[in-house]
């Protein structure tokens, strides 16, 4: 029994070393990815007063602007849809999204990409993405926002 016990302890040490090494590798990979491939990670785009979203804020006129060689999109996610109803950009061009909500929380999941921020009223979300494939991308709301939640879709058209 004593020998058996020693064997178990040796296996256990091995298992824990394996586990800790695995975790260390994960942490390094995560850090590397966040630093080098983290453009779609949602960053604060500043606070915004909810009552002004539809009136005087930069989001009152939802649009895609061409700024130099890039696009900047101001998007409203509202119950139950997105404005602009269709976001039109060119393939291979960087798009900076600013997104907010005039009512409750929403999602902004762009199918086939890593774009998946939480849209929180009172906050603007900022993220960047370069679409490298032309086509139509669907935007899906994936945060419960009320009775019309499942019907809340948007559209991004990426042209050649």
């Amino acid at each position, binding site marked *: *029994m004593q020998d058996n*016990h020693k064997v*178990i302890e040796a*296996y*256990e040490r091995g*298992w*824990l070393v394996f*586990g*800790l090494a695995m*975790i260390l590798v*994960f*942490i390094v*990979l*995560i850090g590397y*990815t*966040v630093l080098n*491939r*983290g453009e*779609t*990670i*949602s*960053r*604060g*785009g500043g*606070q*915004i*007063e*909810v009552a002004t979203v539809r009136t005087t804020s930069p989001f009152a006129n939802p649009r895609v602007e061409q700024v130099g060689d890039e696009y900047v999109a101001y998007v409203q996610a509202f119950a139950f849809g997105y404005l602009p109803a269709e976001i039109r950009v060119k393939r291979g061009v960087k798009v900076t999204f600013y997104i907010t909500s005039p*009512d*409750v*929380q929403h*999602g902004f*999941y762009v*199918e*086939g990409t*890593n*774009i*998946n*921020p*939480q849209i*929180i*009223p*009172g*906050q*603007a*979300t*900022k993220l960047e993405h370069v679409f490298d494939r032309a086509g139509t991308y669907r935007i*899906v*709301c*994936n*945060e*419960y*926002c*009320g*009775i*019309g*939640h*499942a*019907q809340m*879709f948007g559209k991004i058209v990426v042209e050649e």
Partner: protein
Amino acid sequence: MAVKTLSSLDVYSGHPERKYTLYTLMLGFAALLLGTLFGPLQALNYGGVDAYPLLKPLVQSYYQGLTLHGVLNAIVFTQLMAQALLVYFPAHELKLRPNMTLAWVSWWMAFMGLVTAAIPLWGNAATVLYTFYPPLKGHWAFYVGAAVFVLSSWVSIYLVLDLWRRWKRANPGKITPLVTYLSLVHWLMWFLASLGLVVEVAVFLIPWSLGLIQGVDPLLARTLFWYTGHPIVYFWLLPAYVVAYTLLPRIAGGKLISDPLARLAFLLFLLFSVPVGFHHQFADPGISPGWKFFHTVLTMMVAVPSLMTAFTLAASLENAGRARGGRGLLGWIRTLPWHNPAFLGVTLGLISFIPGGAGGFVNASFPLNQVIHNTTWIVGHFHLQVATMVTMSAMAAAFILVPHLTRKPLLGVGYARAAMWLWFIGMNLMGFALHWMGYLGVPRRAHISEVAGQYQGTLPFMALNIISGVILFVAAAFFFYALFATALQNQRLPEAQTPELVFTQVVSGPEGSRIAQLTDRVGFWFAVAAILIVLAYGLPLVQIFTSLNPVPGVRLW
């Protein structure tokens, strides 16, 4: 076997804590029964079949059904299991009676809180899901009921602290017995963990729902919610771990390999459970990526005690299988008591916890999380963790505890056994389907069956959801049949034949163990845990609190 009928008074006169435990357990299973009725409806929805129009006068919408499913199963059932198991187990181990007045105060608080919250839930006045994110605004009674329900757990914390203090006073210098130690650490972790939810509901949501304040900052509410919302899963999980560490090896016919390592695992949960909540807010604006990364590292650390647990329990089961005559590399598996429903419940739950835990690494990986955030992947994940591991362990505990507490022998053993296998198969099939659908981008918490055709690419997985929903419905029916047939029979065994509740023996005990001595400094480790929380949450919370941006509430359901 001599069987006679006794009045309840005789049964519990020497053991009033058994009556408290039974009532808490059964209230929890009543919640599970009600919540589980909505489970197959969720599965049908994710199979593209909309059954909700049929329920129209009773249930107004898919989202109301989902709110009931989430609140009853994830908040009510789980907390009541902790309040039953981890108050009774230490009392039983120490042979001390908990303060019975306070024990019943906690039961009545839980019950009244439940009833208060249930009224607006049934009335479709609080269809805000179990995360109740503002600015969606439910009826005040929902928040008040939820607060009273959750605060009843603080009474349970006191009950166990009081048991431990009394034992320590009578046994100065001795190391806390294992079951009591594990339970105590669980409750201390929960005290630290629950503070976020308590502040969110008491300071913000209740005054807001009563119209006393105009708005709530949704980012602050999310942050406070997830401060509690991640460790709450350990609050649910640790009672299952206590069952797995201190009952399973004995049920299997062996011993727990190491007492000190069980203590160490729980201590790591005390330290790392709470300061990890931002991994639920990776997608949020308003929290810097640096803080999210810090929480990522701590989240990875909280996997360590589960990796330890996997080893210790597997080794303990091997020990049991070999003690029963199993030979060879894998021969010990065959000799384990697969006929015993309690063994099946915990073991099949633990097996499901392995793929569930692997998925957890994906969720915790900051950049990978973007792929699966708010998709059905998450739903698949917690159905393996909570709805399989935690729930099956609670069911297994019921197979042992109900006969022990009531002196009524387990009836419907065949149904109980079948329920465990079917639950395991159904949940794993569904977990698999939901993970894949989530990976393909299907949103969670969405009434997708009303927009049938929008997710054609996932049809095979949708079909799997329907199949697993049917399997789980049968599993639930079998389980509740065995539970109620046992609890409601009117025959009781004589006192001398009370089914025992005996905790597992250990191969290496706490005596002379440095780990056992160090981990027993509970006050010190509690302080370390609090400091870690301040480090991980202090600055971000100060930032959010000093720039509050309240938003008025709306009802959109």
